[in-house]
């Protein structure tokens, strides 16, 4: 084989390109998240999920413990059924509360888990009974306005 320098450079180029891809996948992207193999699925039903999306983080005490696997609409109960994939190294009691929270003022929405006191832990396929829906800004404002209107006559108007 002649022209070994070209082979060497092409080899270096391909290795460099693949290394760049690997860096993008591991360092920039989140290839190292929970996969179906090493996690368990639990579901929760919410009256309103707000802007929650699939792959949103599930956090407990601020630590990411899983991801939202899928979101479906239950046409019988008119609620949203959210399936979460939790890392199996973390165990939560049966009476864990799942609430939809927002990171920061305008950040993305995630599910927060607050552990309860039950002795039994959630297993694959279980459903969390205690949930708290997302805060919808319009509802909060209208509630605020109604409460203002109720106390209106005794208010600061002369």
């Amino acid at each position, binding site marked *: 084989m002649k022209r070994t320098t070209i082979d060497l450079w092409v080899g270096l180029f391909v290795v*460099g*390109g693949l290394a760049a891809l690997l*860096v993008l996948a591991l360092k920039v992207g989140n290839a190292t998240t929970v996969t179906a193999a090493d996690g368990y699925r639990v579901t929760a039903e919410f009256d309103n999920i707000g802007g929650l999306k699939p792959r949103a983080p599930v956090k407990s005490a601020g630590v990411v413990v899983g991801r939202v696997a899928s979101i479906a609409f239950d046409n019988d109960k008119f609620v949203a059924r959210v399936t979460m994939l939790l890392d199996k190294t973390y165990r939560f009691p049966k009476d864990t509360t799942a609430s939809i929270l927002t990171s920061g003022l305008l950040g993305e929405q995630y599910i927060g888990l607050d552990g309860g006191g039950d002795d039994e832990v959630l297993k694959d396929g279980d459903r969390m009974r205690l949930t708290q829906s997302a805060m919808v800004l319009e509802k909060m404002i209208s509630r605020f306005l109604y409460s203002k209107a109720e106390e209106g006559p005794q208010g600061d108007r002369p």
Partner: protein
Amino acid sequence: MIGALDRGLRHLGARVVDGIWKLGAASRFTATLLLRSGTSLRRFQLTLDEIHFAGVLSLIIIIVSGLFVGLVLGLQGYETLKRYGSAEALGTLVALSLVRELGPVVSALLFASRAGSAITAKIGIMKSTEQLSAMEMMAVDPFARVLAPIFWGGAISMPLLAAIFSAFGVFGGYLIGVVIIGVDAGAFWSQMQASVDLWDDVMNGVIKSAVFGVAVTLIALFEGYDAPPTAEGVSYAVTRTVVTSALAVLALDFVLTSFMFTGV
């Protein structure tokens, strides 16, 4: 008056017919190229040489441009994000804009002007000096021996170049954001990792750059093969390669983006 209108219409008609003729010729050219690609896989040394030409020799411009695009993104992004008190989101901004858009598109544009123009010039001159005809006379298929290896070399090099561009861009953003301005390094990387998805973002970027590589290399090869065999013809063909592939890359980018990043 009527004469001018007549001439205008004739000119327009000739342009349209010429465009359609060219499209048909390009499709036939592509089909022939793909059908006779066997040699470039069997004699892989030919393809390796073309990867060396299209990929390795483009590395410098790709690395330097990627680094500078990342530096500028870091600076501009920081100035804007600072106003909303979310300078830690700089990592997300730099990584997403590079991996999704700038990496594939800018490296494809650079690739078109660095490698595409050279491919057109090479093929055009081989045609005008009748080297391609001479090959046919010797029963050597120019498609299999010359054109297909160039095509595969370009198609293989482009995704790797785009990945290198994005990686160096992220490094540039890190240099400006974390090393010089002083954004918290942990927040920079963790916010980036939380919002960049392996399949939705990184892999779609790779798919984009592969499509761009195929498009740019095909345009360059066809313009060279189709060039009138004169010095002027070749020079026009080189210009057309750069212009057409830039437009094709941008249009394809819009189409691919509207397919990839819709919905949830």
